[in-house]
């Protein structure tokens, strides 16, 4: 069973489009995260949700909107995609706060043309 799953694995789209990435965890964790990993492999937190409530919102353009319909899901919607949005986006989850072990999904490679 996959603990943290993301769809799609690859996403290629044109500038200006709107796209969504879905994430689901079956670990029963309370906290979920979205990270962005750039071409230099630097992993930076974007958002964190605890029990469906937003607890971290880093300096991310408001074109990025996370949505947590329930504790097991955290989706990421991106409006008006830009070239600089190209990266690998990782979803992760942990039992409690961010000092707990984080379990990462396989990543979604987004390419904006």
């Amino acid at each position: 069973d996959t603990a943290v799953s993301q769809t799609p694995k690859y996403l290629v789209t044109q500038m200006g489009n709107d796209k969504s990435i879905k994430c689901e965890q079956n670990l029963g964790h309370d906290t979920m995260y979205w990270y962005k990993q750039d071409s230099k492999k630097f992993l930076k937190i974007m958002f964190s949700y605890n029990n469906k409530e937003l607890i971290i919102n880093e300096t991310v353009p408001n074109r990025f909107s996370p949505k947590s319909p329930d504790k097991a899901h955290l989706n990421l919607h991106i409006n008006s995609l830009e070239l600089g949005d190209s990266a690998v986006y990782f979803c992760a989850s942990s039992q409690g706060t961010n000092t707990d072990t984080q379990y990462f999904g396989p990543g979604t490679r987004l390419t904006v043309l």
Partner: protein
Amino acid sequence: TQLLEQSPQFLSIQEGENLTVYCNSSSVFSSLQWYRQEPGEGPVLLVTVVTGGEVKKLKRLTFQFGDARKDSSLHITAAQPGDTGLYLCAGPYNFNKFYFGSGTKLNVKP
């Protein structure tokens, strides 16, 4: 500048060699974690160090947390090709924020 600086950035060695990867910060961390990420996958936790001066061993991997809790190191003995990957240190900083280091890309040649 990154909150957590790792060195070296890249490391290419022969199978059987030893290596050490460093993770440094000017800030104090309550704990630090080490992750390994393989191509096309997400990072996987290797270890968490909590106490200053703590040493943890995981088979051929030895992790150390600095006495002042500002730095950590990962030592691999007799590296194998299966150790190839991106090694990331990470830790909580400020309330509820989790930062990752700049990463060390290790390639172990057979």
